[in-house]
């Protein structure tokens, strides 16, 4: 295979999965330097395969960090650009367009805003009103996007915490897990198979400790959906996490028997 082979464009997938043998990998990388569509697709695919990798978390041996830091102390870093003179080239010149997924997210946030504005335009009186609405909707869309991003960053950080422990619960079609870090005072609660809370009711999460039950958050669930809830609390002295059904708005203390209880090992 050469970098001019017309078939080469189909190799983006195999390349991103690291399924090309060494010699073909080298040829394909040459091709990437000259084919923008393939380069863009490859960048997107690598983001995709990295997500596949995210499933494989497994704690590293405790002494690995010391060995790494030790070797790093003896290792010189590469120069920023590939060649000596290339360093002079400004970053802006080397800049590629952002990965398509970023463009896509931005575009879709904008599209949501545009559709909403168009829908609303029918009812709005003045052009000024519409502009203000457009701005506020666009900024809401951006806020939502930021929220989603910071939420997943927070979950990732929590999962990476050194003291993280996982507690599972499984009964009658309800599966849930709680990933807790005492040190961070944070947990992620994930549950599937829960029925939606009854009309004008909500689920409430509790931390049970020496001081009794402390409310740590409300959630509801749509039919068949998975709940992912970030919970803050003092888990170090907690014995268990419980979930009850409470009237809408929540209660200061549990008023019903728990739907589930997950015991924490201390």
């Amino acid at each position, binding site marked *: 295979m050469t970098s001019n082979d017309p078939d080469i464009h*189909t190799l983006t997938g195999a390349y991103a999965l690291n399924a090309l043998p060494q010699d073909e990998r080298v040829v394909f990388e040459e091709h990437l330097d000259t084919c923008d569509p393939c380069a863009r697709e490859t960048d997107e695919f690598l983001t995709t395969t990295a997500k596949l990798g995210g499933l494989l978390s497994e704690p590293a041996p405790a002494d690995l960090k010391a060995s790494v830091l030790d070797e*790093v102390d003896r290792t010189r870093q590469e120069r920023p650009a590939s060649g000596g003179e290339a360093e002079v080239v400004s970053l802006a010149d080397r800049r590629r367009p952002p990965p398509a997924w970023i463009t896509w997210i931005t575009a879709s946030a904008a599209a949501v805003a545009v559709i909403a504005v168009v829908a609303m335009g029918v009812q709005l009186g003045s052009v000024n009103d519409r502009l203000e609405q457009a701005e506020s909707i666009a900024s809401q869309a951006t806020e939502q996007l930021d929220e989603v991003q910071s939420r997943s960053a927070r979950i*990732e950080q929590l999962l990476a915490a050194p003291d993280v422990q996982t507690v599972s619960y499984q009964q009658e079609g309800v599966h849930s897990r709680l990933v807790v870090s005492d040190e961070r005072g944070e947990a992620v609660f994930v549950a599937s198979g829960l029925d939606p809370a009854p009309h004008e009711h909500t689920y409430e999460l509790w931390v049970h400790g020496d001081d009794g039950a402390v409310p740590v958050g409300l959630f509801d669930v749509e039919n068949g959906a998975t709940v992912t809830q970030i919970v803050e609390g003092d888990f170090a002295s907690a014995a268990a996490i419980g979930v009850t059904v409470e009237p809408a708005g929540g209660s200061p203390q549990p008023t019903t028997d728990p739907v589930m209880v997950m015991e924490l090992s201390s």
Partner: protein
Amino acid sequence: MDQDSPRVRAVRDESESTDDDLLLAVARGDRQAFSALYDRFASIAHGVVRGVVRDPSQSEEVAQEVFVEVWRMAPRFDPDRGSARTWLLTMAHRRAIDRVRSEQTSRDRTERAGHRDRGRSFDEVSEQVEVSLEHEQVRTALEVLTDLQREAVELAYYQGHTYREVAEILNTPLGTIKTRMRDGLIRLRDEMGVTA
């Protein structure tokens, strides 16, 4: 809080940096940022390596190579092309694959290719998996693939087979496997993009 000691304050600031910020700081030779980046990614990078390499002590060696390479190559990281996370996990996966392939160069690759259980299957691996929002997305996305797409993607990514080996294992023409890998990733990409 005012009574925080400076050290606690510094650590707290790092825990609030994004992955990209940390890696860009590492690119400037910041060792403390490197230490924080290590803490954040050690489990995932080690898991990716272990999934492909399997042998615990070899996995540890490869994971060490990966993090030293992260330090060495950080100045070449270009955030415009993808996130720090993608950069780092791509590096980890590639190093793991290289280790597995260099081990088998002298062996009969065809015979080896018929041997399906070098890596761990996705199901086995997923047993040990932590829960997160993203995991749910990835699993849901994998379910959307056709059987052939999913098998091709999993044999390559999770078990480290080349596309030729995948073609032999699945008894499917090479050209079809290449296309299924690409189609599969397009679907995964779109599926994950929609919910991201």
